[in-house]
């Protein structure tokens, strides 16, 4: 039972962590080498990793997608060990529009033009690409670029403000929900259980659990509603 619990928790953590890793914005330091457009015929297993047709267009089974080819500066190994190497990274450049994830990006064409202006073959130009998503080569999946800006050198420090505030917000929201739940327990559920418990205690040591079971969720909900009624 303990092992099942631990496995379940690890799995939950990986799924939630993976979800945030996919959806939240990340910054890469890159040299743009070219931009291109390819036709994409989606499959059932990689369709979920793509957004949809440009905001104003109709959705078709097949469409062109914009790609930004780059040479990306490798991030620190495990976040600790600096390494001075580059790798190839290809980004797709799609509108997220009004749909998930909520980046409200409608300017893919503009972004493609900006990326083209930063093509770095004759002179060395570095840029920071903001993106979300993963590169999965086996499924032909690309991260989606949502912004690009030029930087002086590849050694800039980037502070992920959005993610910092997002996690602070998430923490506050979580504490708030816990506080609400506690208030609900304290004011609405516990008094009911106490009343029932006083009688039942004489009969059975397990009175609390029993009364809760007997009452049922609906009964407690109705009793709780009654506490809001004006007197």
């Amino acid at each position, binding site marked *: 039972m303990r092992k099942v619990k631990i496995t379940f928790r690890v799995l939950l953590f990986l799924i939630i962590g993976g979800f945030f890793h996919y959806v939240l914005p990340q910054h890469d330091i890159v040299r743009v080498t070219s931009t291109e457009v390819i036709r994409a015929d989606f499959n059932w297993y990689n369709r979920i990793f793509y957004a949809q047709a440009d*905001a104003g267009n109709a959705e078709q089974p097949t469409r062109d997608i914009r790609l930004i080819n780059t040479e990306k500066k490798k991030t620190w190994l495990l976040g600790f060990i600096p390494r001075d190497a580059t790798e190839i990274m290809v980004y797709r450049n799609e509108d997220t*529009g*009004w*749909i998930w994830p*909520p*980046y*409200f*990006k*409608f*300017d893919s064409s*503009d972004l493609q033009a*900006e990326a083209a202006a930063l093509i770095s073959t004759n002179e060395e130009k570095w840029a920071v690409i903001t993106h979300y998503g993963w590169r999965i080569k086996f499924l032909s999946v690309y991260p989606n670029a*949502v*912004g690009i800006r030029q930087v002086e050198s590849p050694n800039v420090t980037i502070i992920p403000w959005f993610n910092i505030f997002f996690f602070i917000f998430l923490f506050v929201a979580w504490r708030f929900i816990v*506080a*609400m739940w506690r*208030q*609900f327990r304290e*004011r609405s559920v516990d008094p009911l259980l106490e009343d029932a418990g006083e009688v039942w205690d004489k009969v059975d040591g397990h009175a609390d659990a029993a009364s809760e079971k007997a009452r049922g969720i609906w009964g407690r909900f109705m009793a709780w509603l009654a506490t*809001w009624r004006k*007197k």
Partner: protein
Amino acid sequence: MGFIRLVVLGFIAMTVVYFAISIYSRSIRREKLEDAWDADHPEGGDEAARDAYIEQGMVEYENGFRKKLIWLVYIIPTFAVAILLIVMNTN
């Protein structure tokens, strides 16, 4: 189409949050009034006077500024989306 879906789903989500916070806030207010009464009347005091005191406090809350602040649940996300729209789509 996507826009309509966002508005509808967003409105439903914000309404759920609005009601949850309203109920929570009302509960906190009532508890504070009860505690204040109990602090002033350690021996318990008159039951009817206690009820009147709490109801009076709740009426003040219902008409007060604090309750109106809960409308920020609708206002803040709407502004956040508007700002995100502008920031994301201007070069």
